[in-house]
């Protein structure tokens, strides 16, 4: 059978790095072809070439057997659409406007948009895909999962038959991922050709029909589901190029007595709606402890991080770090007091994308004696430090003066890690620290967090990934609607069920009843 897309011998070179080195890749109608590989392996680059965003230096692309050379606009005419790693949507516009953007149907009077026919078509597509979305809702009001649906409808709206998904589940909750898989299977049954990039190998084995593994710009392995070769072990080993592969798990320790972070009766509200987001939390993180905060995203985790970090102000309550009250200090003072923060939104609060690696590394510490003297930067010292960290943290493609935005997603994350960890924090807040990282890098990050704990620092880990929560935490608190629905002290594989219930706000019967009783007593 002739492939719908065939890429032959694709070569793409960026300054100083060969992102794609003679790569072959194909897509068939009705099949999902997964593309996996380490951070910076060149997956996104290859897909951007297929999508017409980049032009290859060498090699050719055949669409339905015909050699083609095109830009993004041309790709859309050929029926190729891409669901990007960072959504290409306009938050201030409605769902409908985002979908028809660039392809708006017109009335008889040219140039005037036929909103009526657009709406009918979109409603039909939504219905066909079983999606519940209001076309008039502003995109900025949507959850990440809903925004992804918009992206998919956008592709179907232009009649795409080739869909590229770049790490679609990296930002989704498990429920949302489940919905996405249903959608992908439906697209498959309609005969669409699908390219699927992911670092989550269980997803790949679940939905892909074939998988290509890339490493350092080259294809290193190819396998099909039919042949029965497509297993997690095989994928993992060919990704990292080792024979054996295991995820790092931290050794659980009983919680120590000396607290680094103490939070007492913390309350906070949304400044615009005045609704309560954090409702009287009490907890502490001890020296040498990794405290995991689990829960479905949007239950106050983000607000809690911002309060501890000092980005927002609490209504009431006290936060102290190593015995010092920091409740009313600013971000800078808290950093000086020993707070480190690996932020979840790497592009916005994590790094300054336009600035170079070394500027990102020294940022916030530029006036310390290590990096400056008499008000002048010690560029020699800064560069040495940067090079050492690039080496130590294996920041692929990293070099001096390179703007951080031209690193791959995973390597950007490593810049943040390098900066925060190299400052030896007393408390390290790690928010979704391995999101979008390959398994090698995930292990690396896990080792770094464990090393922090072994150095007697306290680590506050916030993650929506259950596996990670269990692998790293010594103790787990589950958040539900701005409160802790429960605590898990002896973390083990079996804790997963209990956590699942707590995530849904379900506490074991007895406790709940007892609570209800006390609760009423207090209220009256």
């Amino acid at each position, binding site marked *: 059978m002739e492939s719908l897309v065939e890429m032959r011998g694709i070569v793409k070179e960026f300054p100083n790095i060969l992102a794609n080195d003679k790569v072959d890749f194909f897509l068939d109608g009705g099949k999902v072809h997964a593309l996996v590989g380490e951070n910076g392996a060149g997956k996104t680059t290859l897909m951007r070439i297929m999508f017409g*965003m980049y032009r290859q230096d060498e090699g050719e692309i055949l669409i339905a057997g015909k050699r083609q050379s095109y*830009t*993004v*606009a041309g790709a*859309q005419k050929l029926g190729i659409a*891409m669901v*990007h790693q960072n959504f*290409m*949507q*306009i*938050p*201030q*516009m409605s769902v409908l*406007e985002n979908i*028809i*953007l*660039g*392809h*708006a149907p*017109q009335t008889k009077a040219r*140039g*005037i*948009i036929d*909103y009526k026919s657009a709406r009918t078509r979109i409603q039909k597509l939504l219905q066909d895909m079983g999606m519940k979305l209001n076309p008039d809702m502003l995109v900025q009001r949507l959850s990440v999962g809903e925004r992804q649906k918009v992206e998919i409808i*956008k592709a179907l709206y232009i009649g795409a038959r080739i869909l590229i998904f770049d790490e679609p589940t990296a930002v989704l909750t498990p429920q949302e991922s489940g919905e996405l898989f249903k959608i992908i299977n439906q697209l498959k049954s309609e005969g669409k050709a699908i390219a699927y990039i992911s670092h989550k190998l269980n997803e790949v084995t679940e939905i892909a029909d074939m998988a290509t593994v890339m490493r350092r710009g080259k294809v290193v392995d190819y396998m099909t589901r039919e042949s029965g070769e497509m297993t997690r072990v095989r994928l993992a080993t060919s990704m990292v190029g080792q024979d054996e592969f295991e995820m790092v798990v931290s050794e659980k320790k009983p919680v120590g007595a000396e607290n680094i972070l103490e939070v007492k009766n913390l*309350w906070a*509200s949304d*400044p*615009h709606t*005045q609704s*309560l987001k954090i*409702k*009287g939390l*009490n*907890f502490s993180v001890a020296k040498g402890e990794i405290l995991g905060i689990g829960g479905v995203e949007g239950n106050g985790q983000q607000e809690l991080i911002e309060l501890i970090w000092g980005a927002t102000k609490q*209504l*009431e309550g006290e936060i102290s770090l190593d015995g010092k009250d920091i409740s009313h200090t600013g971000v800078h003072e808290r950093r000086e007091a020993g707070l480190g923060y690996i932020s979840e939104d790497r592009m916005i609060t994590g790094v300054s994308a336009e600035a170079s690696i070394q500027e990102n590394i020294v940022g916030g510490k530029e006036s310390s004696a290590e990096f400056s003297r008499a008000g002048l930067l010690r560029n020699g010292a800064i560069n040495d430090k940067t090079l050492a960290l690039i080496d130590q943290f294996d920041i692929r493609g990293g070099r001096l003066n390179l703007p951080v935005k031209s690193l791959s997603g995973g390597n950007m994350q490593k810049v943040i890690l390098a900066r925060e960890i190299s400052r030896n924090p007393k408390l390290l807040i790690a928010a979704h620290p391995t999101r979008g990282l390959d398994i090698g890098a995930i292990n690396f990050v896990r080792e770094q967090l464990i090393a922090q704990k072994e150095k007697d620092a306290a680590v506050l880990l916030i993650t929506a990934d259950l596996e990670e929560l269990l692998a790293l935490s010594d103790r787990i*608190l589950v958040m*539900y*609607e701005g*409160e*802790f*629905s*429960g*605590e898990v002290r002896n973390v083990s594989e079996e804790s997963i069920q209990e956590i699942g219930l707590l995530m849904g*706000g379900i*506490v074991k019967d007895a*406790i*709940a009843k*007892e*609570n209800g009783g*006390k*609760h009423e007593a*207090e*209220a*009256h």
Partner: protein
Amino acid sequence: MNITQLLGLTVRLLVPTLLVALGGIFSFRIKVFPLGLEGYMLAGCFLAVTGTYLFGSPYLGMAFAAILVMLLALIFAFFVIELSVNPVICAFAINTIVAGMTRFLMIPVFGSSGRIYLDSALALPRFQVPIIKSIPIVADIFNNHSALVYVALLLPFVIQFVYYKTNYGLSLRATGAYEEAAVAVGISTRKVRYIALMTTGCLAGLGGAQLSLTANLFNVGMTDGRGFTALAAIVLSAGEPIRAFLGCILFGLCDALVLNLSSEGIPIQFLSMLPYILAILFAVMPPVIRKLSERTAFSKLQLRIRQNDPEILASRAFHHSVNSEE
């Protein structure tokens, strides 16, 4: 002077600024701050008088101004889009060059300097609008204006339609909001940007033309900061045409009051400040009010928590299960 006369004067005074503001919105929407409006407007004033003088018709003069200022905007667009010159620097260059050139060209074109009057035969014709002219009060305000006044009063609504109902409007808003996303769906943002910047030139040129042709003269520096007033209207309206219209009405009213009251002995310097004071108030008030109300709501909630308000405590479902272990 009575109130209807005052409003009639307002209409006449607000139109040039309105045209300039509406033009500027197109640039503002694609995130090019239209600091060159003053220059475009002044060029429009001068070119309209020149064109009227050369071709013997105010309408040809107007077209002449609109087209040439649009070409000036094309040069600006070329520098900004193709050569990535900073638009602020480019706009200042335009303002300076236009101020100098209009002064310099007066002598070769008209053989005089400082101020030139057009023949009264070349004055803009005024219209008696059929129905409007017979309605009492309304006639005093809206009747007996020149053609462009009527066009300008409808234009905010036309532009509103263009923004929200046409393909170009959608592309324009997308380009301004998130250019990469617009590119990703295959919109030629380069074209969108050129059209927007040139429309700014065209409308601002017309605004200048209206200013000089209603007065039937050109005067060195005659725009006198109106381009910046237009800019204030744009910023206050956040680029929404109808809101910008309201802003221009306000400024026009202030201008009319100034003309009126100064003849009654109130110091003119004070009155001329009025529109700017109003502009600042209008710009500053909404965020201040919002901040204040957020602050009070915050303190109220804080107090309720501190006083153990039962309703607030009742909003918690789990509190004790975790706390009891502590």
